[in-house]
């Protein structure tokens, strides 16, 4: 009789944590499955060509030496085609694909060369073939936008990218 009463007393002190833990585990698993903030997203600003450029801008461009930098992306590689208004022309440069695919480093080197001659220019027109995939477009934009090859501060090249199709 004595033993039975002791057992009964001890049992009444037990706090049943199982439902609480069930809820916690389910919540944690649910949130881990749904959470997106572990992935850091970024955005690349882009624009498409304007059909009617601002008259003031056009007039200013004619007066001073300016650059229209076009980069064509085709299945064969890149073609960097700088067109200079009011100054000596620059050479068109072909950057063919290498064994890994598109030569983004080569494109960035060429962008650096042009940037050194036109330090104030920020615009580039990226013209790609329809069959080129989106990933290659984003990587091309990355290569043209800024140079991060040095471990120092990233060097801005041509951050204003306008997209067009061949």
């Amino acid at each position, binding site marked *: 009789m004595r033993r039975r009463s002791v*057992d009964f007393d*001890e*049992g009444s002190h*037990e706090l049943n*944590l199982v439902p*609480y*833990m069930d809820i*916690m*585990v389910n*919540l*944690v698993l649910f*949130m*881990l499955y*749904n*959470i*997106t*903030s*572990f*992935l*850091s*997203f*970024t*955005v*690349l*600003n*882009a*624009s*498409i060509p304007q059909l009617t450029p601002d008259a003031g801008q056009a007039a200013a461009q004619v007066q001073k030496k300016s650059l229209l930098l076009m980069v064509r992306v085709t299945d064969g590689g890149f073609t960097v085609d700088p067109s200079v208004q009011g100054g000596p022309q620059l050479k068109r440069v072909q950057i063919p694909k290498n064994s890994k695919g598109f030569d983004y480093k080569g494109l960035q080197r060429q962008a650096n060369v042009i940037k050194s001659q036109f330090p104030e220019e920020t615009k580039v027109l990226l013209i*790609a*073939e*329809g*069959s*080129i*995939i*989106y*990933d290659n*477009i*984003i*990587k091309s*934009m*990355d290569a043209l*936008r*800024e140079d*991060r090859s040095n471990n120092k501060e990233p060097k801005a090249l041509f951050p204003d990218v306008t*997209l*067009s*199709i061949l």
Partner: protein
Amino acid sequence: MDEQFHHQWRARLKKRRGKAFKSVTMRELNLVAMMDMMTIILVFLLKSYSGSSLSIDIGEGIRFPQSSETIVPQEAIKLSVTRFDKGVDGVISVGDANVLRLDQKTVGTLLRHSKSRQFMIDELFKGLQQEILRVRANTKTIEQNEKEPKKAGSQKLEIPYEGKILVIADKETPYWLITQVLYTSAQAGFDQYNLVALQEEVAVSKE
């Protein structure tokens, strides 16, 4: 008879002792530390969940391109193009609404249009216009509520309309479709395109 009763009593006692022993071991398991840990994880996850500036539903249909850009994206109207391939149908959606199913026939038609320089996608145009109307209606509701703060039963504005659109596309999407999507967005009244990508360092560390 007595002996049989004695055996039964002993067996019962043995069984009882076993139960008692079992309950004692169960009580010795210390769950407090585990519950502490679970609570901390839960709080951390809740904070991360609410603190992220941009919520993107990551399904199997989108494999993000990678970029070295570090701009933190802000909420805007989302336009997504999911993966499509032979045997896999993609979807173009605006916000939460699917506006066009990219099956083989539709993709063929869009490709033909692209080759003939017709970049407008009518279904997407309608979807974008509806989304703009929805967001503008929400903006009006908010403005009215600010004037009459006590009036209840209004919707909360999630995204302001500023002509900005987040383009979330699968990395294998062909450029002709991206061009059509951007062109149609421009016709619908958007003039700022934010192409969403995964930050490169994160993507590399995940691999």
